[in-house]
Structure formats: structure tokens, C-alpha cells
């Protein structure tokens, strides 16, 4: 699971209103090389929940020096964009789980695949 995906995932357990962002408990993380496209990164940033991204990177110990707030004029800052690129696309959680912040329900991650299926009573 990449952190870009994590940024979009939310808990949909019945009755939960504050199911975002999911907490990450990772037991195996991998870094994979992905081609850097600065335009992709700079256009993706406005679509993201920035604080959730930073928090997630932090939980994995891969925050490095990503700032808590967006730097102004980031579109032209290639160094910054490269850092964001790494965190969005290159860091992957292979094993672990995602936890709903409100209900505590855990969704396992195995082979990089989060299993978000709910049981009948949770729907």
C-alpha cells in the first residue's frame, strides 16, 4: 500500500463519522523506485490531505524532513517535489494493518493489499 492510496482511504464502519485518516501499524515496509514526474507531484499536492500524509509518513518512520505545512511556491521546488514523490509513491507498506481512529477496528494489510471488507454486522 502506497501512502498516496492511504491518503484516500477512510473507515466506513457503520456509525463512524471520524474514520479518517486511518492509523498505520506497519510490520514490513519497502521502498521501491518509481520514475519521478515533477508535474505529477505538483498537481497531486492540492488533491491531498497534507497533514494526513505527513502523519502517515511519520508513523512509518519515513517522514525524513517533510514539513508540517506546505512550502509556498512548491511547484518549482524540485527538491521538495522529489521528497513528496518518495513518500507518495516509493514507500510501501507490505505487512501490517490500518486502524479506524474512531472504532479501533483493524483492517489487515498483507502482500501490500489492505483488506477493507467489513463483516455483515459492521455494514
Amino acid at each position: 500500500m502506497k501512502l498516496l492510496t492511504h491518503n484516500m482511504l477512510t473507515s466506513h464502519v457503520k456509525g463512524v463519522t471520524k474514520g479518517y485518516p486511518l492509523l498505520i501499524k506497519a510490520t514490513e515496509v519497502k521502498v521501491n523506485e518509481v520514475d519521478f514526474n515533477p508535474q505529477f507531484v505538483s498537481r497531486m499536492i492540492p488533491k491531498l490531505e497534507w497533514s494526513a500524509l505527513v502523519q502517515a509518513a511519520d508513523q512509518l518512520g519515513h517522514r525524513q524532513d517533510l514539513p508540517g505545512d506546505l512550502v509556498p511556491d512548491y511547484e518549482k521546488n524540485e527538491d521538495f517535489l522529489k521528497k513528496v514523490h518518495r513518500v507518495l509513491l516509493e514507500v510501501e507498506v507490505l505487512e501490517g494493518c490500518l486502524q479506524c481512529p474512531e472504532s479501533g477496528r483493524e483492517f489487515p494489510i498483507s502482500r501490500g493489499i489492505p483488506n477493507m471488507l467489513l463483516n455483515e454486522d459492521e455494514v
Partner: protein
Amino acid sequence: MSSHHEDPAAEQTSPGDDPSVSSTCEADSAVITVTIGATVPTGFEHTAAEEIKEKIGADARISKDRGRIYFPITTDKLFQVHLLRSVDNLFVVVDEYDRYQFKESKEEMLMELQQLASKLPWKNALKVWELNRTLKKKKGHRKGGNAARAKPSGETGDVAAADAEQQAPPLETPPAEADAKTESAPDSEEAAAEAKLTKFRVTCNRAGDKHSFSSNEAARDFGGAVQEFFQWKADMTKFDIEVLLNIHNEEVVIGIALTEESLHRRNISHFGPTTLRSTLCYGMLRLCKPQVSDVILDPMCGTGAIPLEGAIEFNSSFYVAGDNNDMAVNRTVNNICHIQKRRAGKGSTPGLPIDTVQWDICNLPIKTSSVDIIITDMPFGKRMGSRKKNWDLYPSCLREMARVCRPGSGKAVLLTQDKKCFAKAISRMGGLWRKVLTVWVNVGGLHAGVYLLKRTSATFGQTPEDVHEPRGAADTQLEDRNDKELS
């Protein structure tokens, strides 16, 4: 295009000329123009023509015979055809007849086909065939012959190209006959003798109700004449040259195949029961015109064919492949890993902009309005799911898809065979989805539709569609009319 038939006396390959023996004539390195024929998924002929214009710069002509397009190319640019993602098979045209006058009787017709073999302008087409073989060898193409169909747990039969990163190899004059099909290193004398003998087969596709003969008969008789003329050996399974005889009503095209296996299974090594052809996936992706940073979801991804094709070919977007089925998500990950290993092996950056999640399409764990494009193959009543299930599934899907899709700019490209069910479901969703166009395609022999939808700018949760509505009189009338149109 008008009938064009060259003077048989002029450009003729004389009998006894074995094309696998190269001549040292200067004309071999001269650039010539030929017509290439391509088979594409029916319904996506225009998409393929667009890709050809974009990547090769040629104007493609769409044949009346559905699923076929033709375009001119010079031999120095031949390698480019292997970069096309929308074509299933490629062949070089030997000759074509727009309005072939078929003889009335079967005997006369078959006799004519036999005579045709010796009159056709084979030379240029054979040169292109030879050149193409060289190109394939350079790419390290593994010749598995017909047996190399992808197996569930094994390797892919690596087909001739289709990797967008491949650089064009420089062209050389065709090599000598020793290059003919010898995979391992057998006894030298036997190998040399085997190698000298060119093996061929004829494949005939015939469509139309005014012919007095069958495709088998035509293939047999034409093939016999070809064998006689060239002194090649006929072999239906282990052939070097595949001659194509395509007859569609009055249109007759003779060609030589340039692709061994269909290119359409190129990305998938782990198949599922309903895996889509990559060429069809490519056609669907082109339809939604992925932009830089678009978030693209396939919420019923099966083995991941669509998002994987996207991640390779339209790689400035991000793909999330999802399914509720255990085997499906695992196969998707296996397919992704397979491609990444292949890329790493070729020295490219392995990682792809794609991720896999296990989820329920009717209750997506995705934030509202966070997705730009939804592209998927919806379950067909016959191959997966059931008609009754689709009745309930389609409206729920469309609603959930509308929720996660960005209002105003969002799009959906949905493939389904259950046109009735889909039309009914969409007719009640005018507040959320607007139908832009439909492409009619053929999927495994079943007639299906690819629907391009635009997400309206209405916020989810504020239109009547978000709530289940009881059927009113107006709805019934609309449905009756739609039913009549579709039956």
C-alpha cells in the same frame, strides 16, 4: 481504396526463390513503402487510427470488415508498429481487391485461387516479413511458437514488443538463412537442412453469404498453390510464414502475418476467468483521456488488466485496482510484480503508479469526491455474476461511483454486456451521471457496450438519485421504451 493489382510480369518472386536466403542485391537496403494491416478490437477502430496517427504519423483507413484497419509505412520505420498498444495482430499486405468478382461455382473459384498464388506481388511483402523477423530477434523475443500461451503460474509467452520504453533498433540488411528457426543447438547438418526449408501455413478468414466455398477449402487450395509456387513446406503448427487470406464479402486481402501470437495478452501472466484483452483495456483508457495526476480507480479489477495497462501506457496518472475477491486481488498483485520484474530486467525503473486494495464496490472505503476517473469491466450476467444480481448491483455501484468521483470533472468508462440492466440503472441517475457516448464492442463473442459517462456537478447526497425511489408512472414508460429499443 480502389482495386490495385500489379502487373504479374514486373515485380515477381520467381518460383524457387527461397525468401530466407538473402540476396546481396542493393535493392535490399532500399526503403520501400508497404501497407500494414492491423486487427483491433471491434468498436475501437477509430481509437487505433488515432494511435497510429500519433505514433507513426500515418493516416489509417478503416476497413468495412470490422476490426481491421490499414495504414502505409516505410520499411525504415517498421519497428514503430511494435509500439502500438491498440492492435491485436499485424500483417503486411501482399495485395488487396476491393471488389473481387467471385466465380459462381466452387470448382472455378478454387481454381482461380490457385492461379492467384503465382500472380501475386510477393516480393515486397516478403522483404518486410524478413525485416520484421530481424527486428523481433533484436528485441530478444522468445519464440515459444503457439504453445507459449500464458499459463497461470508460469512465465508469459513474451510477445514481440509492446514495451513503451523500448528504443528502436537500427535496421540492417536481412541476415542469411542460418537465422531461421533454430532455438537450441541441434546437430549441425540436420539443423542446416531444417533451417533452409521454409515452413508456412495459410489462415483463411471468410465472411459473407455469397461465397460458394468455405474458408477451409480456400485455405487448402490457395495453400497448395503457394506451396507449389515457393516450394515451401506446409506446417500448421510450426511455421515460419503465416499467409493470410481474408475474404469479407467482396473485399479480398492477402497478407503475411508479422505477429506470432496476438499481442493482446501482453501484460497478464496470471489470468482469471474473465481477463480482458490488453488492447481492449487500452481502447477504454484512451476513451477517458487520462491527464497528469488523475486518480483512476478500477473498483472491480479482476486480474488488474485495465489499471495495469494504464500504469504502463498512461503513466502520469495514479491507479488503484480494487476487488472484493481474494483470488482477484492476489492475481492483480502477481501481474503487477511480473511486469515490475520484467522492467527491472530491462534496466528500467521497476515501480509503477498502481496500488491494490480489497474492498466492496457498493461500500467503497474511499473519501467522497477524491477520484477523477472510474474505469471498469462490470460483471456480465453470463460470465460472472447473474442477471438478477446485476439488477441490484448496477444501481448501487453507480451510486457509490458517483459519490467518490469528483463532481463536474469526473468521468467513468464502463464496459458491460448487460445493456438492458445498465440502461435502466443509468436512466435513473441523470442527476449524477450524463451519458456522453457508447462504443459497441465484442468481448469473447459477446456483444457489449463501453459507456463513457461524465459526472455532473451536483454534490452527492443532494440529488433524488441518492435515495431509493419508488417506481412512478413516468419511470415505467421510459423503461418500456428503452426495453423496446434494446430488444
